[in-house]
């Protein structure tokens, strides 16, 4: 009961989602096609269940950082900042969602999002350039032929994308385009095909209940 019903749910939902795009015509008793069941029922249901799952994750985050604040653990001020900013953005966004036509509400949320969340996110991803630079320094120290191939390809792509590349050598931009269009496409395509076959096999195992890791322990 504790394992069989979830396995049955996975199988039924998986089959309906699988048959949605590949079958036509109505199911005799239901007088609906698989595609209609997916678009009318299952897809909106997924949106709602996923939304509840985000709530679950946020409760975990609140519990963890709430306990840091309550126990005044080292760095608890940062945890307090996280909790306060999370609650503030949650409330602001909910009001924005519930009153989408109120111009003041929309403008206020736009202001806090554009001036707090967006710059923090943009700057956070921008400094990843420095992380990558230090990681590449370590990676490129491995003086093998394969590491050299990686290094040369990366340098050509970076120089080809930057205006300075064309100033150093006229052919850098066209060489970059060729690398992207031909050898890169071949490599990516083979990796995608391999991953797809692996994903297909894993999905089949899950569908038929051979892979049950997602159910967790007893």
């Amino acid at each position, binding site marked *: 009961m504790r394992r069989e019903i979830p396995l049955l749910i996975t199988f039924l939902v998986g089959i309906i989602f699988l048959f949605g795009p590949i079958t036509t015509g109505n199911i005799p008793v239901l007088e609906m096609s698989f595609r209609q069941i997916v678009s009318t029922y299952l897809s909106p249901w997924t949106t709602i269940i996923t939304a509840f799952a985000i709530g679950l994750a946020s409760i975990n985050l609140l519990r963890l950082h709430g306990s840091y604040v309550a126990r005044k653990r080292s760095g608890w001020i940062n945890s307090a900042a996280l909790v306060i900013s999370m609650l503030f953005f949650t409330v602001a966004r909910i009001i924005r969602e519930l009153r989408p036509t109120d111009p003041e509400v929309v403008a206020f949320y736009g202001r806090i999002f554009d001036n707090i969340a967006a710059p923090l996110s943009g*700057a956070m991803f921008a400094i*990843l350039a420095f992380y990558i630079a230090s990681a590449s320094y370590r990676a490129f120290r491995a003086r093998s032929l394969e590491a050299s191939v990686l290094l040369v390809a990366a340098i050509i792509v970076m120089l080809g994308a930057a205006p300075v590349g064309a100033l150093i050598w006229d052919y850098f931009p066209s060489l970059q385009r060729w690398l992207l269009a031909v050898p890169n496409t071949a490599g990516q395509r083979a990796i995608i095909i391999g991953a797809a076959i692996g994903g297909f096999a894993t999905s089949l195992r899950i569908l038929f209940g051979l892979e049950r890791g997602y159910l967790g322990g007893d």
Partner: protein
Amino acid sequence: MNISTSIWTWVMAACILAIFSFIYKENPIYRFAEHVFVGSTAGHAIGMAVGNIHRFGWVPLTTKNEWHFIIPAILGLMLYARFIKGYAWVSRWPIAYLVGNGVGLSLFTSLNSQAILQARATMMDLIVHDKAGKFLLNRTFDNFLLVFGVLIVLTYFIFSIPQNGPMKKVSQAGRWLMMLTFGVSFGNVVAGRISLLLGQISILLTRWLGVI
């Protein structure tokens, strides 16, 4: 120089500079900004989730009497059984639903768009001529590289045959092509991050300091 007088622009600049302070070294200001970043992103996601429940569940249920929306609401609430001792297993039902959804979608898409369509796109003319019948060396070379490149990288992933003799050499060539692919991807990522960095610096110089 035309420094902004807007409080919001100063807040934005403070956020960017707090994160950029990490370039010097890890410091309390950076850690504070990092936590605010996580909190604001999580809060935004939670608000969106509540909006989705309202828009796609509550409104159709209350205004159009679409009672079937009670099912995902119950399944969603069942997720929270994880917090009740002895009833954590109840949360498996909604998880099973989401896994079934993912599996059903990926079974078709992985096979169709990622395997079949990619394989079909690789089935191209090896010898290329233009409309006048003239042999095109560049295109022919590119097509050879594309077709045999895909095959040699796939050879690297064949684990059911021992990779000895010529098979080993082919798979080694596949490895080099993969390293080249990773190099191209790496170069693209670095170029993308640097363009983000320049974008942030440009925002500081234009909107905040007004020097550009």
